[in-house]
């Protein structure tokens, strides 16, 4: 198929599809007038039932916690798949240990490492109280380690993320999620992912029951997954063939 024919076919079909799309969108409620019952029930129920202030985290880690389990496994799978794809023996020498030459960049980067990691942990820890949560905090924490790289300390980065330890952390993160879920069956005697822990006082760190635990373990899983993915890409970059 020549490029022109292809573009023509694409143009026509995309135009048709766009018309249909717009037709469908006109069937939606007016912007801002959505009255979905699901969300409203959860908004009013999550506080009293789950003792959390951030309803979104109650949805992600409890009401639809099974989706989040799928999402954690997805990250885990991605790590496995990336590692499998980039698994070629990287036997070449490390060509450059330091990618960045500017001292200013290094200094700024190094200074930023600590605060980023701390901020990441904070965001992760308060996920069920204020905006944030395991995912956001996890990525932020991992990014702290990336900054370490940006600061030109590839070796320092490698030292800070020994692969086996992180691998272990990743496995633990996902594994604990499942264990907490199973605890619902064993202890609670009823269902996978059902809350089995004291709910605690709303608005404090020790609240939310399993939400807090799941939030923490998913933070762990996400942070280590990100580090592992970054790690694979970095290794790829650092080895010359």
């Amino acid at each position, binding site marked *: 198929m020549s490029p022109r024919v*292809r*573009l023509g076919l*694409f143009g026509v079909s*995309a135009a048709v*599809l*766009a018309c249909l*799309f*717009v037709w469908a*969108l*006109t069937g*939606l*409620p*007016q*912007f*801002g*007038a*959505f009255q*979905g019952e*699901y*969300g*409203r029930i*959860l*908004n*009013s129920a*999550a*506080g009293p039932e789950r003792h959390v*202030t*951030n*309803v*979104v985290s*109650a*949805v*992600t880690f409890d009401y*639809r916690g099974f*989706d*989040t389990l*799928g*999402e954690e496994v*997805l*990250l885990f*799978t*991605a790590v496995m*798949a*990336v590692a499998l*794809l*980039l698994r*070629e023996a990287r036997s070449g020498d490390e060509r450059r240990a330091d990618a960045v030459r500017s001292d200013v960049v290094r200094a700024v980067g190094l200074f930023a490492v600590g605060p980023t990691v701390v901020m990441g942990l904070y965001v992760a820890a308060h996920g069920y*109280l*204020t*905006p944030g949560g395991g*995912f956001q905090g996890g990525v932020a924490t991992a990014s702290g380690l990336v900054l370490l790289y940006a600061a030109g300390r590839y070796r320092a980065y490698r030292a800070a993320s020994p692969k086996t330890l992180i691998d272990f952390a990743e496995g633990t993160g996902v594994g604990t999620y499942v264990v907490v879920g199973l605890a619902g069956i064993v202890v609670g005697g009823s269902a996978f992912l059902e809350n089995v822990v004291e709910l605690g006082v709303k*608005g404090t760190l020790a609240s939310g029951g399993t939400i807090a635990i799941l939030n923490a373990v998913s933070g762990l899983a996400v942070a280590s997954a990100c580090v592992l*993915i970054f790690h*694979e*890409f970095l290794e*790829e970059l650092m080895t010359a*063939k």
Partner: protein
Amino acid sequence: MSFLPYALAAWLFFVGLYGIVTSRHLVHLVVCLGVMQSSTYVLLLAIGYRTGKKAPIFTSGVPTKVGAVDPVVQALTLTDVVVSVVASALILALVIEIWKRSGKLCRCSAPPCSAQPAISCPHGSTTSSRLRSRQP
């Protein structure tokens, strides 16, 4: 005017799709895929928005009475964001591998790949005439 957020979702969807179809570079293609995916975030969040309502986070200061926007779509979008990162990382890993191989291919196979390693060059599954003459 109130149609604008939905229109944005449609716009991003088709802009991304156009980018993918006309893309000549796989990295470009991955990024366009990301743009397409962001249209689903916009669509979800626009659907769940309720005029005048706050975010579904009821810290002590905010009275629960006011009500909040839909928390479910936000949870869905969060998952969607993760999906997008995962997909991009995987495809980029494949792209890196292709890049490494195409270097190799240039060296050892007769028809040289072009200097711009045409990442979307057909791999020749359509050669209807059998070029192979070697007998096993």
